């Protein structure tokens, strides 16, 4: 994003080519850049800030006109409501958060367990029609979920997977495996095959060589890939909406969306639930930010 802003700016102010003007142009360009970036940041961050503010306002203040930016009373009631039901005990929202954790966690783990060895095999072995296979695998990701959700709904109804966590886990895994294979293949390609050759000559089998030498070197890549997969599963909305309905199976995205649409909307609760929902993704992305960039710029690194 920084790049596109840069490019947009560079064509702007530098028109006069006398040295002093260019020096001024450099200064002007800097100012313009900062201004544009500030605008961008405000546009991007305002909804987030507003969400956080709303989550800690009392309901009176949420609806106040004109809107209160700073002088409102802070309350944690909404966050309490997210986790605790009004009569005491666990709230339905907290159940759906737990469901999200289970579904996203298990499907990511499955996708990693299936995808990493596959990526290794595609990278190391002469597989017949390797390029075609890889393209086919990728092509399963071409279609947006909305397109396939109806057939999958019908299939799931036949086999009794509708409204089950297992159903969601399977579909998320199916979506994450191709992604994992593609991303991990890049990381495996970066690890020289000679490590495994050396290990095999040293007395290990091929699988041991993979397990003991290649896998440790792949861990950063696996972490990055898993976070991507986790974020996909965590955020997924379409399948979750169509394939689940009961409160004890539903994941957080449809559950939060379900809060909107009654006669009155408890915006404080919606905002608080959204904050809780967004938090894990932000934390994970922050933890693996270095590897995320490595994953995205893959191939540009070394060689």
């Amino acid at each position, binding site marked *: 994003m920084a790049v596109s802003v840069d490019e947009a700016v560079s064509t702007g102010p530098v028109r006069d080519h006398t040295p002093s003007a260019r020096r001024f142009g450099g200064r002007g360009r800097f100012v313009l850049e900062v201004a544009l970036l500030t605008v961008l940041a405000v546009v991007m961050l305002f909804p987030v800030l507003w969400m956080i503010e709303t989550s800690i306002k009392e309901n009176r203040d949420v609806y106040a006109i004109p809107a209160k930016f700073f002088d409102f009373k802070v309350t944690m009631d909404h966050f309490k409501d997210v986790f605790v039901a009004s009569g005491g005990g666990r709230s339905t929202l907290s159940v759906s958060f737990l469901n999200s954790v289970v579904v996203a966690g298990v499907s990511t783990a499955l996708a990693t367990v299936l995808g990493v060895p596959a990526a290794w095999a595609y990278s190391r072995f*002469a597989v017949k029609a390797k390029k075609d296979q890889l393209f086919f695998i990728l092509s399963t990701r071409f279609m947006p979920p909305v397109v396939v959700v109806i057939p999958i709904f019908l299939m799931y109804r036949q086999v009794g997977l509708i409204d089950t966590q297992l159903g969601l886990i399977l579909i998320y895994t199916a979506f994450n495996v191709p992604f994992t294979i593609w991303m991990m293949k890049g990381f495996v390609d970066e690890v020289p095959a000679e490590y495994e050759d050396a290990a095999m000559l*040293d007395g290990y089998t091929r699988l041991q060589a993979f397990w003991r030498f290649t896998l440790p*070197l792949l861990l950063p890549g696996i972490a990055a890939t898993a976070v991507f997969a986790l974020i996909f599963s965590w955020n997924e909305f379409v399948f979750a909406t169509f394939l689940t309905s009961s409160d004890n199976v539903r994941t957080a995205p449809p559950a939060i969306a379900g809060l909107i649409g009654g006669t009155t909307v408890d915006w404080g609760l919606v905002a608080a639930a959204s904050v809780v929902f967004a938090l894990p993704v932000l934390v994970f992305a922050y933890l693996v930010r270095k590897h995320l960039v490595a994953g995205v710029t893959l191939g540009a690194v070394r060689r």
Partner: protein
Amino acid sequence: MAGIEVTALHKRYPDGTVAVDHVDLSIGDGELFVMLGPSGCGKTTTLRAIAGLERQTTGDIRIGNTLVNDLPPAERDIAMVFQFYALYPHLRTRDNLAFPLRAEGLPKAEVRERVDEAARLMRLGPLLDRRPRRLSGGEQQRVALARALVRRPRAFLMDEPLTNLDAELRADMRTEIKHLQGELGTTMVYVTHDQVEAMSLGHRIAILNKGRVEQIGTPLEVYDRPASLFCAAFIGSPPMNLIEVEVADGKLRSQSGLVLTPPPGLPRDRCLVAGVRPEALEVTEPGAERSVPARVVSAEWLGDEIIYVVDHGGQRDVRVRMPSTVRFAADAPVGLRHSGGPPPVYDVSTEELVA
């Protein structure tokens, strides 16, 4: 320790590339055997087949009289050093060396003893606690060699282990490897495309071209009598002058009239080419005895010697190696004569040695 027999080796990769067409090698126990050839001629593939890292399409490999075609690399008891050293990056030198031993399940004390011994042989003492990233190229190379040694394998396979080092270090390591191999007496197959390395290291050299063996012989044999035009053009720097000759009344004469000492048993009525080493020719004053008139095209001064490029009216200019005390100006008219023994002679159509 063991010799290695390779019989009718043929390797075709799944994509259809024939990397090794037909290779027969018979490597003696304790021999330092060098495989030399241009890039892409199948050296690495042959070596990997011997190691068991690549399965040959057809052909047999025997190590110490055991047919190893179906043995996985781990059971062939062979150590290999790669061009890219393949030291495990997350392990310190000490653990890199110990790894193959731990894989064998040796007791701790013995592992320690062997690691120390290999470290002493390769002078790795101060490097034992470093990770590969903090070692220089030469040091990494020594660790890689030590890791090969530590297992006391039946044979060493080396795939261009010195390519990544600078010239000086390369010369040092060459001496070291040769010395080490002599000391241990372990069979070693050494792959290189550097003929100096091949000449200085090998007990015997196999010259490979396009997946086939062109010649096997001692460095001297290979230098003196290249078995084919390919070998003649490949070995030596500068390589042999290939001069078209004809046989006339028991003499070997080039188009320009240059007379060469004829080898015995020359065939008649065939297009022949003589391979004449640059040091077997001589640039003389014009009109000297047995010389043909010629002209200096250019001169490369290499310090202790000069390589003259000389036009003698033949099809190609010839290169002549002269001591640096003998100076001729470029373009000067000179004489050219043959001063060595009988040169190897090749048939142009078969490209093979005929006399």
